[in-house]
């Protein structure tokens, strides 16, 4: 889908995978998470522009609109159990990022 170098650490980017919008988050190093771009609370495609952080040592992504934090690994919202982001498996092969939708 893109090179690892295309992604700046701690700065989310959106990607289009077969018509589906996903949010790619690269942490320090080469760890990359992919979750849905759709913010289920704000009902807008914005999650890639959220704020990357951590809660009790687990990496999180907060919605840019209403700031609910989501666990990046599982997509679970940490402040409202009813909310959930889809999370997608990511693989880095020879510097190329691959996401399975």
């Amino acid at each position, binding site marked *: 889908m893109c090179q690892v170098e295309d992604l700046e650490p701690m700065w989310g980017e959106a*990607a289009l995978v077969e018509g589906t919008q996903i949010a790619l988050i690269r*942490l320090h190093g080469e760890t990359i998470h992919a979750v849905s771009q759709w913010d289920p609370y704000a009902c807008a495609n914005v999650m890639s*522009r959220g704020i990357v952080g951590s809660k009790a040592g687990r990496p999180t992504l907060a919605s*840019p609109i209403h700031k609910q934090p989501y666990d990046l690994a599982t997509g679970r919202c940490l402040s409202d159990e009813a909310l959930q982001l889809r999370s997608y498996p990511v693989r880095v092969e020879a510097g190329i990022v691959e996401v399975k939708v």
Partner: protein
Amino acid sequence: MDASTHPAPAEAQRHIAVVGGGPAAHRLTEALISRDPAGLRISVFTEESSAPYDRVALSRRFAQVDDELLLGDPALWEDPRVQLHTGTAVTALDVESKTLRTAHGEVLGFDELVLATGSSAPRPPIEGSEHIAVYRTLEDVDWLRRRAAELGEELGRPARCAVIGGGLLGLEAAGGLKGLGAEVTVVHSRAWLMNAQVDEYGGRTLNRLLEQEGYRLKLGHRPSRLAVDLEAPAERSRYTLEFAKSPDLPADLVVAAIGITARDELAASAGLDCAERGGVVIDETCATSAPNIWAIGEVASYQGISMGLVAPANAMAEVVADRLSGGAASFIGFDTAAKLKLAGMDVASFGDAFAETPGALEVVYADAVGGIYQKIVVTDDATTLLGGVFVGDASPYSSLRPLLGRQLPAAPGAFLSAAGGGELDLELPDDAQVCSCKDICAGTIRSAVAGDETTPGCTDMAAMKSCTKVGTQCGSCIPMAKKIMEAQMLSLGLDVSKALCEHFGHSRAELFEAVRATQLTSFTEIVSRFGTPADAQLNLGCDICKPVVASILAAQHGAEYILEAGRGTLQDTNDRALANMQKDGTYSVMPRIPGGEITPQKLKVIAEVAADFDLYTKISAAQRVDMFGARLEQLPQIWRRLVDAGFESGQAYGKALRNVKSCVGSSWCRYGVQDSVAMGIRLENRYRGLRSPHKMKFGVSGCARECAEARAKDVGVIATSEGWNMYVGGNGGATPAHGQLLAKDLDDATLLRYIDRYVMYYVRTADRLQRTARWMEELPGGVDHVHDVVVKDSLGIGGDLEAAMAKHVDGYEDEWAATLRDPERLRRFRSFVNAPDAPDTGLAYVIERGQRRPATEQEKVDAAAGDGPVLLTGPRIPVREEMAREDAARAAGGLDPAQAREGAPVPNNLAAVEGRS
């Protein structure tokens, strides 16, 4: 208020008549209603034309013409059980028939009557005294203010004012007049000021402090006559205050504040017992000599004394409210604690200030050079606190006052802050009174922190004040109340809101200082040094601390681009895109329009850009034009056109200076006395881009008519014929606050210097998301402290603050111009990493009043089902190639960007598609 609008319920009720509408009457009414009484009807009669107001705060009205001095919640007077009769004096009482007569000739019956007629301000008994003004009511202050201004204009020089009386009230009046630009002489019959509250050494220290502030003093003499020459030419004064054994004092205006005279005339003529020195005699239940008639406040005389302070008035009101509701409360005596409310003059005393208790010991710190005097009075065994006097530095006052009559937790000397005594942690017992105005004890504050089933706990001072009313009258107890609240929060395991979030144990101000001291420049470094945990791999921060760190770094390294490597990822939603994200994920674009001044040509560019990109357009509340609905990938293109036309970022997205609102001022307006537009532009261009704890708004008005509403701004500047008055801490929004006067008649350079210092001090010390109004409210000492720091440079950091601001001003660069210059930075504005120009297909709009707005979820659903409005979706025009072309043209040299665009105009018309989302 018209009684007919709130007809009282019809069934038989007890009728309580309250005569007088000052703070005592207010407190009584409030206390009765709060008990939610059944079958009670309360009529309040006041001869003044306004509802009861806070007389204690009267001096505020000198600086703020429209301050209504609200006392409690005005909804009290709307309560159907209460009838307020303003402009209605009660002229006679009949104890036998239980009736009263009003000045309008009405005769009304009552079951209980409470006298709360207060007192009046006497004039000295000398010839010519009818020309002497007094200082007691709203009308008095309004008159003094008008008169001082008129005199200034008529005479073409500052008015000379003589204030007779150097007590609490006289000094306040003197301060108010001096604030209006008058030359003030205080005439006092004793050798030192405030002799009723302060002992000789403290008083003499106070004398010197006032002289240093430019007051003239005439001490040790009483005037014998006021000579009047109304025809006097401007160089001379109309009045001459004559003294038996001292030179005459010429004055254009003479004000007396020599004490209080209880307004017991109504009671006396009704045959009630009155005290020799005036006042209606009451017992400890506030009952007078006549059945069913009570007296409270300054009109009441208890053990031969009428106290001129509001705390006893409030206490008496509570006693009567309790008695009228079937209780058995009684009044235990006066709290005579008093603190002078005069900017820059820290004077307070409480308890046995003169050490008159047999065997009392005094522990004193006196520094005649530094102008500080502190004294604590204790029992002969040095254990129990009896009183204290503070001049020049009254910081121990608010913590010691509640300990009056109690064991001191440490040796008395430890409480003399000026002598190096630290701030001791005082563990006050629950029943110690912290706020005497509102009679709030430490225990009440502690239980408010915890809250209960019906009310949430209070964990900041704003909530604490509105919940318990602590500190809402004279305000002198706020520092102590805050300390108790925080100690209680700690003991309940609550976060004393200092820690930013789980990632940092510091407050914003602490982190600011730490980062400044260590010169760290990146989030990773800061986390590794100060984070919890201090491990940059585990501690990635969050939406709270990252923007705070970004703002701290931006304020300290102003010269650098805010999205520079590493710092871009710290920014909050809006800063990240240098635009404001809206609910559907698109952005609004708001170029800076300094001072609200714009040429028609530039306005046209805005119109063209908005039309070409089909942006919803609205004039913002801040004298600018806001354009909505720009997609992330469109921002650079929009801004290229705006930057080329000479616009720059308006920082509407940042916690920074937003705008400086200005009126048209002296260049066009008939009334203007200074060029407010020029000053507005100058301020906006000076402080633009400075990152701060919260957004800041400034305002500049060209004359006192205040069309720019500058006093509702963080910094408000109002023109005077001499220069500018500077107000600080104003706020519109949800909790409005009027700006408070910081300094008067400043020239341009001094104004800028003070604003530099003020704003930088705020940037360094405020909490995250704390507007200046709340910041000053929480700051111990409030506006007085800010005045000391900014105007008097009491912390000696003025130069440092100015230098920090100069660094910002010199390093300022428009963020959008900086972005457009650099392809690396532009990369961040791609919509998709693998399809940089593809628009978000989820956007859908509805046309309303000729412009588009985001469709609601319901509208999207309806459209998909085929019924509902037509939606506009899916913009189609890719814009990237074209930008790349422009950039190439630029790089190749000199192609006018407008030409580059020409081949490919930028229509962005949305395709009308039915029901696709």
